[in-house]
């Protein structure tokens, strides 16, 4: 610390005015080594120059996922609502959604600057176009924001991955700091992180975009830049103007935008074709999502398929059966539900629900009191009985007493 103090004192003793070494000499004309080496171009705005990169990919989905591109407006808005639980602004097609990902100098606060924005959009010909805007140096931020505002002005909806917590606040901050209205305020923002996490969390070790892209989409990135060193690489670029590592950041961002689109398409596909072989979500999660969005028959089909796929006896199997049985009950298909409960009771399931539900069914629907009593008695004598919740034990006790009383009076008559 004395080192700090000595050094600092030395600095403070220097005459005022700009020290000679600091900063790069300002070039007379704008020059971007990254644009030159990575095929970018310089766009001039009233606020100054900005560097742009464009990239187009054809987006065939060999596994059937590209059926999504052919959705008409109704199909798309239904699928979208299923995934996000929120409507696309109408009338909007997939072409009206901008897929956005940013690279920044820090994690947040007024000092975090967006130095690269990638925007992806689907065009009418089925190509996915990615345009990236790069901040050559801090003083060109007004130009970058101007371009970004212009691009977003033509969109209806925004789709990001974790953008609610990360990208959007930083972009909003940058506009405030440049005394401009943020274009995000006029867009409906859909954050794919939340639905993706709901559907895939059981199968993946985490829900980062890179993990899902690998485990759901089967993409593996070669030589990718780890996200946490991206800010450092930008500092290096500013100091050295060596475009090599920055070109890798460009590729990283481009892949993020592209994967964001593919993952969105995957989810739109899965919720609308739950039986397709290409679905990667867990059937329990997909079923729950569909149930929540009132797609009860589709949900039942998903659970039924799950029962076929999962080994019987597994925890998932029992849980799925339970969900399916309750769904049948909700759909009024009591006999189908009862069949599932009966199976479980026969194999002495350690879950309490089948006993209670089957007993209710036997007592109130089939009016077979002695069979109901038998089921309740089996539950009361079950080896797990003492570990079930108190209300379950009380319910069984109460049920037993009543059934016992009623069967006795029957026999008495």
């Amino acid at each position, binding site marked *: *610390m*004395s080192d700090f*103090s000595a*050094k*600092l*004192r030395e*600095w*403070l*003793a*220097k005459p*005022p*005015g*700009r*020290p000679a070494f*600091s*900063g*790069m000499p*300002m070039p007379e004309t704008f020059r971007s080594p990254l644009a030159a080496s990575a095929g970018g171009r310089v766009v001039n705005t009233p606020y100054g120059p900005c560097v742009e990169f464009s990239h187009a990919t054809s987006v065939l989905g060999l596994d059937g996922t590209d059926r999504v591109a052919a959705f008409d407006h109704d199909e798309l808005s239904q699928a979208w609502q299923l995934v996000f639980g929120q409507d696309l602004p109408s009338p909007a097609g997939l072409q009206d959604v901008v897929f956005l990902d940013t690279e920044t*100098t*820090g*994690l*947040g*606060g*007024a*000092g975090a*600057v967006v130095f690269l924005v990638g925007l992806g959009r689907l065009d009418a010909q089925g190509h996915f176009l990615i345009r990236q805007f790069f901040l050559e*140096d*801090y*003083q060109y931020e007004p130009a970058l924001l101007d371009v970004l505002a212009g691009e977003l002005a033509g969109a209806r909806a925004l789709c990001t991955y974790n953008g609610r917590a990360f990208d959007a*606040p930083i972009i*909003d*901050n940058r506009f*405030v*700091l440049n005394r401009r209205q943020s274009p995000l305020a006029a867009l409906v923002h859909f954050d794919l992180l939340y639905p993706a996490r709901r559907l895939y969390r059981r199968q993946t070790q985490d829900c980062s975009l890179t993990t899902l892209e690998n485990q759901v989409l089967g993409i593996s990135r070669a030589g990718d830049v780890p996200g946490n060193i991206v*800010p*450092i690489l930008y*500092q290096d670029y*500013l100091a050295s103007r060596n475009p090599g590592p920055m070109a890798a950041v460009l590729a990283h961002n481009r892949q993020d935008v592209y994967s964001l689109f593919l993952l969105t398409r995957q989810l739109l596909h899965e919720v609308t074709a739950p039986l397709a072989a290409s679905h990667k979500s867990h059937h329990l999660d997909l079923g729950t999502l569909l149930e929540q969005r009132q797609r009860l028959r589709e949900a039942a089909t998903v659970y039924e398929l799950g029962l076929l796929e999962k080994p019987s006896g597994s925890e998932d199997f029992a849980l799925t059966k339970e969900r399916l049985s309750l769904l049948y009950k909700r759909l009024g298909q009591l006999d189908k539900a009862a069949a599932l409960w009966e199976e479980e009771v026969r194999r002495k399931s350690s879950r309490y629900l089948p006993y209670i539900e089957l007993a209710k069914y036997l007592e109130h629907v089939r009016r077979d009191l002695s069979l109901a009593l038998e089921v309740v008695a089996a539950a009361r004598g079950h080896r797990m009985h003492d570990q079930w919740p108190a209300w379950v034990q009380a319910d069984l006790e109460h049920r037993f007493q009543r059934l016992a009383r009623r069967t006795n009076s029957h026999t008495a008559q």
Partner: protein
Amino acid sequence: MTIEQVLDQLANDPRWRRNITHWEVIPAQAGRYAAIPDWIDPRLRRALQSRGIERLYSHQAEAVEAVRRGENPVVVTPTASGKTLCYNLPVLDTILEDPKARAIYLFPTKALSWDQLSELQELAGAIDAGIRTYTYDGDTPVDARTSIRNLGHVVITNPDMLHTAILPHHPRWARLFSNLRYVVIDEMHQYRGVFGSHVANVLRRLRRVAAFYGASPQFICSSATIANPAELARALTGVTPRVISENGAPSGERHLLLYNPPLVNRELGIRRSALLEARQLANLFLYHNIQTIVFAPSRVATEVLLTYLQEDAVSAGRSPKSVRGYRGGYLPAERREIERGLREGKVRGVVSTNALELGIDIGHLDAAVLTGYPGTIASTWQQAGRAGRHAGTSVAVLVASSNPLDQYVVNHPDYLLGSSPEHGRVNPENLYILMSHLTAAAFELPFTDDEEFGVASTQQALAYLEEQGLLRHAAGRWYWSAPAYPAADVSLRSASSENFVVVDTTGSSPRVIGEVDRVSAPMLLHEDAIYIHQGQQYHVDRLDYEAKKAYVHKVDVDYYTDADLSVDIQVLDILKSDASHPLPRAFGEVKVSSLVTLFKKIKLYTHENVGSGPVHLPEEQMHTQSYWLQFPASVCAGLGQEELTAGLGGIAYLLANLAPLYVMCDRRDLQAVPQVRSPFTAVPTVFLYDRYPGGIGLSERLYDLHDELLHGALAVVEACPCSDGCPSCVGPPQEVGHAAKASVLQMLRRVVGAHI
């Protein structure tokens, strides 16, 4: 008996009378009033009237008019003189006139914020014009934060939140900063020393951010009585203040008694315990139903006194709940309940640490008993000021402990009554502090090439930060250019905020009953300690030092515990030294270690030592910077061991009190330690170290000021009229020894004389 009759008894009953060393009567003062200014919004006027306020005290009117003229008032009037209205009135009036207007209120503690919130909400509620007031601190739920940022008219927070959470995220607070009209700083005197220097820089950042949004807020400050309110306010806020110190609130006759407990052993100079005397005095007042506050010097003392007074209440046929305790570590809800009880008069007595010295609203009490001298003149008046109604007589009794400083104060009434209270000093240009806030400010907004932040050498400092890889200079601006969040690395206060929680395991399910700060935890929560909370004793069964939890259970024993703390200084590195001076000096890094090694069991009521036990806790260490003076044989020649000890003690005392003037810090920011034979230097040595982990540049500066400091020290002692030393020079003789003054003079004259 009325309070007048009780005072008669104190004056006439020899049992009391002989212990009273001074009796000061401060005559009643009639209130001075002014009409509520006619420009005040009628809705606000009606709200005031509905709360029984038909007119203002003169100082309130003065403050309100000063704000109206665009000035920055600093209101310096006693506790409970209606200071909050001085800022609430202009703030609410402005919001009624312009609903976009915003204000930030800063309080030094969360407890004060909550207190203020309820008062402000009541007044705003009475207006019923949709004025929204919120507290914003670490406890604010995340989902409430967005609406507070956008909708809160008044945001009540503390400097730490402003520093780490609000300023670095100012774009989210754009609506507040764009319309920021007022910054209210209550308890301004708390912002002194290193803490104050930090706060001054935080406010500098606030003005810079506000200016970005086109706002230039007025500052309204309030302070306890200090010697230099205008100077402190200017240093903190950067604007020219207007001091308002003529108190217009009426006050009844006030009596201040200095009380010295009787000697129990004349030969050894041992007096009856101040705690036990305070108990008797408090009982005298409480017995006659006089609402009383008792200030105790520590948390343990607070709880011990509370135990006594609650028992005494029971034996006198009163409810034990009529006397309550109050200190940091009680949970907020419990504190609120006690405050309310005091205001409503249900709580007749309260025993408190200095927590109630601050402006928490507990109304006016009749009597105050101060157990021991609080250490500063300003605190003494703050505590005594808790007793004092607008009409009617009140009394404050300062009960001296046998501590030498206390003994001096009660035997020299002029020291307390005649001198001005302490100065509040800050040094916002302290290099360490300035640089950390310059860094934070650069994160918040890019600096321009012609911008200054407190010092003329701002541009060089920015170039230094660029060299450190934090900034980038481009096109005439310094841009933040690092993946870091600088405010997170700087704490405004020295003490860590991680508290230990106390878990009561007596019942079927464990229950958290309180908190203890990190510094006090080893002393109060070591295993086998008796922890006392609201008068109930708990035995500490286990201290989980890592998890910061102490597990206790209720007990009923006849003793309390007191732990011994030993402090040691070890020099790690000498960074500068100068042996050519007649008094060699050095500056370097030191390790200060404090260790609790054993505790004593002290019997209740008799205060006998009835046992002890070991404490096994890790040593608390602090690495910091120190400046030390090495006394060579030539300076100490002719002094016997006792005289040398006294001389070193005197010099340490003197420098500890004098050095803050030279480096503009507070007394508590530096620590002086004399060593008659230092294990490191092998000669008599006095260490002065920064009480901040890592050091904060104070002792480094003192090393540079060596000569000036020694000259100044000699001048103080030579000019002091006392005979054997006093708190104003080398310290009270009972503390440093009767030989101190002569020895100090002899030693310093040799040094200073030799050098000139």
